[in-house]
């Protein structure tokens, strides 16, 4: 497939995110893995409370993840330590009763390894931005050293040096994580009512160490016009705008950082249909213009189908099906996906009146008492969460 040639931008590897609920723990995201390639739109669907927003937020490091790792541009940005801790615990327990010498040595080595992994994970989790900044600084150093060495006159060299200082300071302050930006669901709650639009949009730039006022203003105006607002709007406050315009401000705020990836968390759910179309068209334009990669979290399946290249379906913290959007709608395999597709309302009264919704009951549908399920590839590019028996069944269904 041609998709495979594109660089993997984001890789989520066995992500687990749990929250403490009193004494017990609640796994909001449970062992989810997927990859997003550069320039693609990845849709994430599922009912409310199934962990799609948590996945998005975990990627942005809004939460500290419990287990697994997330790689962005090849750099590990998030790492959880739960799996290693569990491994150490299990090894210790065995160590207490174990008498065999060679086995003991093995276990001790395992503990040692896990400890090292934990240290590494913690370092990556904490220092990924600095690592990235160091890399950038080194790149800038190299570039300007060469330029300055080649400079013909002392004036040019000093000018270059000035530029070099500026760029180096920006580079040293750059955070890798700012290359991922988020658009929030509720355009009212996500904008600070006491800040003007200019302040809201430029906040990220200022935090990133840009001090040049004129440059910032220029950028703000440019972005405002890009998202379909006008310069004059920069001085206004969020409450003066309608819902669709507010969502545009939210989009402007995330695009101004020149991100490579945008996580759009239900950006159109709170909008009117006609405004929805405007915002989706805008996102499509921006995507083409900046070569953006978008992770689109939504529950409106017709919008997701229209907008995304690949779709992942989540159910209770698990990824149950993952494939291209056409394939998903043409050959849904997992019963939950089928139930989800049967619930889409369509503007067609006659077929609507006859539509029967498939009810999904996880307990009645699957028997996982003996054979544990996992995410498996049924045909190339089509993953389903299933066990051996179901894999056979699904393969038969697709005629493989």
């Amino acid at each position, binding site marked *: 497939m041609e998709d495979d040639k594109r660089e993997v931008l984001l890789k989520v590897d066995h992500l687990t995110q749990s929250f403490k609920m009193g004494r017990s723990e609640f796994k909001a995201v449970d062992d989810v893995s997927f990859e997003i390639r550069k320039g693609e739109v990845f849709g994430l669907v599922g009912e409310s409370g199934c962990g799609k927003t948590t996945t998005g937020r975990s990627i942005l490091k809004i939460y500290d993840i419990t287990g697994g790792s997330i790689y962005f541009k090849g750099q590990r940005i998030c790492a959880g330590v739960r799996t290693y801790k569990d491994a150490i615990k299990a090894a210790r327990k065995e160590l207490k009763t174990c008498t065999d010498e060679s086995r003991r040595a093995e276990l001790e080595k395992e503990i040692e390894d896990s400890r090292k992994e934990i240290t590494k994970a913690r370092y990556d989790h904490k220092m990924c931005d600095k690592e990235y900044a160091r890399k950038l600084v080194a790149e800038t150093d190299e570039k300007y050293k060469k330029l300055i060495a080649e400079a013909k006159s002392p004036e040019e060299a000093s000018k270059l040096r000035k530029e070099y200082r500026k760029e180096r300071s920006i580079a040293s302050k750059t955070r890798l994580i700012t290359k991922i930006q988020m658009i929030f669901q509720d355009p009212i709650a996500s904008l600070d009512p006491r800040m003007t639009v200019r302040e809201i949009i430029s906040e990220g730039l200022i935090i990133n160490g840009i001090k040049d006022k004129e440059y910032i203003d220029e950028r703000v105006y440019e972005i405002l016009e890009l998202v379909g607002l006008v310069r004059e709007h920069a001085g206004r406050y969020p409450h003066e705008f309608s819902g669709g315009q507010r969502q545009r401000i939210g989009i402007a705020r995330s695009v101004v950082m020149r991100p490579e990836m945008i996580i759009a968390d239900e950006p159109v759910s709170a909008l009117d249909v006609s405004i929805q179309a405007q915002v989706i068209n805008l996102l499509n334009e921006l995507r083409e213009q900046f070569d953006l990669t978008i992770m689109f979290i939504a529950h409106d399946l017709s919008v997701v189908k229209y907008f995304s290249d690949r779709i992942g379906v989540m159910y209770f913290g698990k990824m149950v099906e993952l494939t291209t959007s056409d394939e998903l709608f043409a050959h849904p395999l997992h019963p939950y996906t089928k139930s989800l597709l049967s619930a889409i309302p369509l503007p067609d009264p006659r077929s609507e009146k*006859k539509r029967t919704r498939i009810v999904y009951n996880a307990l009645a549908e699957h028997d996982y008492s003996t054979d544990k399920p996992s995410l498996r590839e049924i045909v190339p590019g089509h993953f389903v969460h299933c066990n051996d028996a179901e894999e056979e069944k699904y393969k038969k269904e697709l005629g493989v």
Partner: protein
Amino acid sequence: MANILEVKNLKISFRTQGGTLKAVRDISFNLERGKTLAIVGESGSGKSVTSRSILGILAGNAIVDGGEILYDGKDLLKIPEDEMCKIRGDKISMVFQDPLSSLNPIVKIGRQITEAMLLKNKGNRRRARKEFNRTLSKLRKNMMLAKPGEEAKIAEMIKAFDSYNMSALKEETAYNTAYSYADELHESIGDFLFLQEKGQKVNVKFELKDCAAKLRRTKNRFLTKGNISDLKLEEGAKLPAGSIDSCIDKFVDELRSARTVYRLAGKDKSSAIDTVRDILERVRELVGGLVERETPDFLSIGYYEYKHSAQDIESLDTAAINKKTSACLRDEFLNEFTEYVDQAIRYSHEQSIGKKKEILAELDSAKTYYEGAYTKSAAKSYAKKLASGVENSIDELEIVKDSYAYTFRSSLLHAIEQYFYFTKHNPKEEARFARQSKKREALIARGKKVDWKVVPKRVRDLAELREEVSKVVATQDERYRDYIENDTNGNTAARATEMIEWFRHQASQAVYKINKRIAKEKAIRLMKEVGISEPRIRYNQYPFEFSGGMRQRIVIAIALAADPDILICDEPTTALDVTIQAQILELINKLKAERNLSVVFITHDLGVVANMADDIAVMYAGKIVEYGTADDVFYDPRHPYTWALLSSMPDLDTKEKLDAIPGTPPNMIYPPEGDAFAARNKYAMQIDYEEQPPQFAVSDTHWAATWLLHPDAPKVEIPKTISDRIERMRKKNEAAEAEA
């Protein structure tokens, strides 16, 4: 079909700082009983304002400029707040857009659901009884007049009808309670056994206790009558022989002992679990049999017990009882009674027609009177006389009230009142306006900074108001004329059965007693009905412990708790995801069918509407721009705004760029002169900017307000995306039909 709700020429505006905002501009629609009307439009098109005005909960700065909302013989815009309270939430209830803001954060869910039931129950019962008695006495009066000389027989009949209705319904309520316990038990044990088998966490002790308590309550004179051998049981049932009642007693004891065994079992509970499963399976078989039993016909039984003794049916089984008693009721009473009711209805109908013919002449002269000059007091006294005549001519025995005739008095007096108020008020207002503007201009001329604005004048056109007065009379006149012309005089038999049904319904309301426990059970059943799992635990939680979808379900449950006639849903699913949305829509549809509910469904999502609506009104800038059945609007849309709405929504086959509607809706403080949609409409013509389009009828059920339908307008094709989609849908439907 009868219209349950009629909205006529409704106009609503809001006083704001910037001026008067015209939110709803002259809209009319009818809602039929048991149908769904969907109102579709963007935010700010006035759809929510319309729905709120039906419920009488408009904001304080709202002004009703005119119009009528007719429901059950009342004009909801003019009745006092006391009376509105009896309708609001009880007859008409509403599901709001934002579930969090319509729930009280510091009151537990259970209390919020049961609150209204408990508060209103006594009043409802009293009212239903009163209504029952009042109509019955009217019926009696008419019967006596229709059949003179049979007074004693009629009195006896009416007495029998009254008493057997009430006693039968009490019996039925008891039976239904017992039945619901059996049904619930059947389901809950099924769930329990399923979950236990799948290795899920279950509360065994609670289940056993609950089961015993419910099982004891299934005992009923009719439900648990007879022997085990009378029940239709599944194959291989292991139930002991003997009477059902004794079997229940035995099971209750067994459940109790199983609980003790389970409690005393040590860490290994597997053998205890086996006993528990065994007893529960047997209980399930028993209640399964009970649920399958034939329902007794309580009305006939009630009559039989009233006339004959209860002893001779005690020994029979339900089917035989039904057969015997219903035959008895039919032969001895109902045939004759229906005949009498029929006579009474015919008599009252003829009387009313006669009176209507009389009043017509008077209405005619009133029309000319109100076109001429009149003083306030003369006009009012004449109006009162006229109204008494009209009220006198109403058919006393009609079930669906003629709202116009009932509200004729208040409408006419209101119109006259308005006219004279503004005759007095207009010059004052003009003077004030002139004074203030002069003052302001003077200040400005002196070079001062003026930080206040002149309050815009609130005057009404007097000629228009006068016309309003004569219009009320003319409408009444026209309606009576129509009525007399279309009078078939037949079909009284159907009306008689309808009437007897109505009495039955009122009687069931009158005996439906609710205490705290029943309210709780009802609330839990409602919660289950709206799809909340573990309702017993959820019952005692606070609103913030629920997710968005769950909260919305609670709001729907509260709205349905009072068994309303009309349910208004204001974007109930906008904040929910597809599966939940589909469930909620299904739920509303199901309840609509079950309870013969009429629904006003407000949304901006046309996809949702397709499943729900019988009729659709597309609203834009306070006006209805297109109105038709669901088929009309989806397969043959005519207004450019409907096209835009349809094409801005992607469906599963959309690949091309979406046609977003450019711009935003107009500012309704300064409504555009012509078609409000003209500025955003790519098909707009010159006339669209100058004059508002009238309603052009496309078919009997379908009209649209756009100049494109004028015969002189240029031919405009429907946008290709939509015509393609319609074509696709047609093909799909045909294929589906061919397959079927």
